[in-house]
Structures are given as C-alpha cells and as structure tokens.
C-alpha cells in the first residue's frame, strides 16, 4: 500500500466539535474516542468551550453528558441560554444531560474525602454505566482537578485517568476533562500527570500585550491527527466560541498565557 493510501486508511473518524476555528486547528475535529485535557486558569473560557462542544454534539444527534463537580448544573444552564443555537428541547429529549458528581458520590456511598483504589474503580464503573445507559458519545467532566483532589497520590490519579480514558474510548465516547491551573503554573495540569496521560491537551490562557488582556487557545497535543500548535485569540459570543490567529507583530510579551 502506498504511504498516502495507508494514511487515508488509517485516518481516524473525527468528532466534529462544531467550533469552526477549533475544528480547523484540529484538521477536522477531535479523533473520536480521545480523552482531551482542557486546561487553563480561571476566566479563560474552558467551561464555555466544553458546553459548546456538548450542545453541538446534541444538535448533531450525539447524546452528550456534562458532569459537574463543583458548580450546580442549574446555575450552569443559565450560562448556555445566551447561545443562539441552544434549544432547551435538547435537554428535554435527553440528548444533553447534566449530572452533578456529588449526587453520584451520594448514591454510591462514596463519602470519604480520600479515595483509594477501590473507590476509583467504583466511580469509573458508575460513569461507564451512565455512558452505556444514556448512549453518551460526548462527555465533559468539569473539573477533573476537583475529582483528583480526592485521589491524593499521583499513582491513583494516573490510574483513574488511564482507566477512565480507556473505558470511554472503548465506547467511542469523546471526552473533555477540564483542568484548572493557576496562571503561574508552568505545567499544563495541577498534578502534572493528567497532561501526560490524556490523548490531547488544549490550553486556554490570558495573554497581556501592552496592557491589553487577550483570551488565548493553543492545542499543544492531540494524538491521532495533525494539528496547528499556534496560539489563537478567542472570543465567547452568542454564536459560540470564535477564534482568530494571534498576531505576532514583533511586539508580543507573554504573561500567564
């Protein structure tokens, strides 16, 4: 088989995010089944990006699940109402589902503040059951940092993300895991292991240029596809996340981006 033919044969099916700029950066979308870390400091657009990914999925007929760890789902819903393309019917018809993780903890009797190996397995099995039952094809956990907080050791965190990723990938479910980092952190995740295990890493940030603060996005890793590694400026609008290339102009000074 000629190399080009082989490339085409090996081309993985894409999960089109519906965010035009991001799909262009990713050469057509996220390879289906990938587990992608969406990482950045507060106010950089992580949650908006994830919500839009799910809403577009639900519109395209892919059942989508948002697992909220820290914020109440009802409060989150108020944030997606301004989207022109959002329709509450998606929720009523079960194509877009919101679940609060603390509710799952309660149902599973996971009351300990510190999870061991056994609890990690119980949690992953529970998420797997929900994915199967609701036929979920897109999943967001916001945030994985808050889940990892209970896992304490790097071994447990590695084990959790590896098992979670494998479980979701085997079901053809493309997932975004939100990771919170402080602007000063030089790595892409709070515990330092999430970025190595995830199939992809998308970094959102703030970039200060001559007193102006720009929201930025950069795909630093994505297995299974060629992609741009350049930095883009993003805007959160009623028509969704918009992206344009960051202008260089020979005068850029980075600060926390």
């Amino acid at each position, binding site marked *: 088989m000629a190399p080009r033919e082989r490339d085409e044969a090996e081309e993985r099916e894409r999960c089109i995010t519906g965010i035009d700029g991001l799909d262009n950066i990713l050469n057509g979308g996220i390879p289906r089944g990938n587990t992608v870390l969406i990482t950045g400091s507060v106010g950089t657009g992580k949650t908006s990006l994830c919500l839009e990914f799910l809403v577009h999925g639900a519109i395209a007929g892919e059942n989508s699940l948002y697992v909220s760890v820290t914020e109440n789902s009802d409060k989150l819903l108020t944030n997606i109402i301004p989207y022109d393309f959002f329709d509450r019917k998606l929720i009523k018809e079960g194509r877009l589902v919101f679940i609060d993780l603390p509710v799952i903890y309660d149902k599973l009797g996971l009351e300990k503040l510190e999870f061991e190996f056994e609890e990690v397995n119980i949690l992953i099995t529970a998420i797997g059951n929900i994915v199967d039952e609701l036929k979920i094809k897109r999943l967001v956990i916001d945030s994985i940092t808050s889940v990892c907080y209970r896992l304490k050791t790097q071994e447990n965190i590695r084990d959790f993300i590896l098992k979670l990723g494998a479980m979701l990938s085997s079901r053809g479910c493309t997932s975004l895991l939100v990771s919170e980092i402080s602007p000063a952190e030089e790595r892409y995740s709070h515990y330092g292991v999430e970025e190595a295990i995830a199939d992809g890493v998308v970094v959102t940030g703030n970039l200060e240029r001559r007193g102006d603060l*720009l929201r930025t996005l950069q795909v630093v890793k994505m297995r299974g596809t060629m992609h741009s590694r350049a930095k883009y400026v993003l805007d959160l609008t009623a028509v969704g996340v918009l992206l344009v290339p960051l*202008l260089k*102009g020979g005068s850029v000074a980075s600060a926390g981006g």
Partner: protein
Amino acid sequence: MAVTTEVSEKLRALPEAAAVALRMKAEHYFDVIRAMLDVFATKKSLDSIYVTSTIPSTSIINALDVLEIPLDHIWFVDCISQIMMSAGQKHGHAIYVESPTMLENIMLKVEYLIRRTADRKNLVIIDSINSLAIHNNTKILSEFLHILVNNLRAKEAYTIIFSMEEYETEEIRNMLNLVSDETLQVEGEA
C-alpha cells in the same frame, strides 16, 4: 453630491469581493460614507460592518440620522469609544472593542457580525488605516490587514479601507498596496 456619485460609481465598477483602499481628503469624509452606505450597499443589498477607530460610532450614527440613512443593515465595531472613557450610551447597532490596539478582537467582532448577518453579503469598512496606525506599529497592522482582508475575501465580502491623504505616510501607502486589489482616489469636484 458630486463626490457621492463619483465614489458610488467607482465602487459599482468593482469586481465581487474586492478589497479596496479608498484615498480621500478629510473634507469628503461624509460624502464618501453616504456613497458607500446609502448608495452602494443599498443597491447591492449588502449588510455593512463599519469598523471605526477614527470617531465614535455615535457620531457617525448621528450623521447618518441627519443624512436620513436608515441603520437597519449597518453595524458598527467601535474601537474608540471605550478608550475615550466617555460615558456615552451604548447603541444597539454597535459592539465595542476596548482599544484600537486589540486588533484580534476587531477581527473577532467582524466575524461575529458576519455570522449574525449570514443571509446577506457584507461590506466591511475600515475607518481608517491612519487612525489604526496611531495605535499600532506597521508590522502588526500589516499582519492584521493581511489576515482580515484574505478572510473577508474568502467570505465574499467587500473590504474598503479608508486612508486620509493628509495623514498618509509612505509606510501606509505600501501597506495598502500590499493588501488591496485596487486603490480608488476620491477626486472631488474639479
């Protein structure tokens, strides 16, 4: 009126989705605006996106009101009102960029308005290259225009970049030559 006729006729002779540098004297400013927004855009059924970094959008809106030009298909990206720290009222047909130095945000707002007016083709006016050059160095401004113009061309939008003769430099002329398909000179009455 002669300037309005001259400019609207020159614009109508342009190919589809052209990018044009429009060189004019400051005295012809409002006649040129009338030619573009009232005559050219109306005849071509275009939605106009007016990027202003020269004067606040409210000043242009007031002028349009005097000229009896309806705002229905005109939208503003105002890059100057916020930097002036004026407590002026926000207008429903204007969206605001904090500063003319936030060139990426100008591109994003233009993109946003193009998506919102998706049922009609667009005319995008940059008013003006001279005022943008006050706030930005030539390198970044050239990069901005290059990306913006090519993006608009791909979307089949017309781009018109104002340049005031009185404030034109050699660098600005070179920049405009690089990014635009044509340069139109507003002669005015002989």
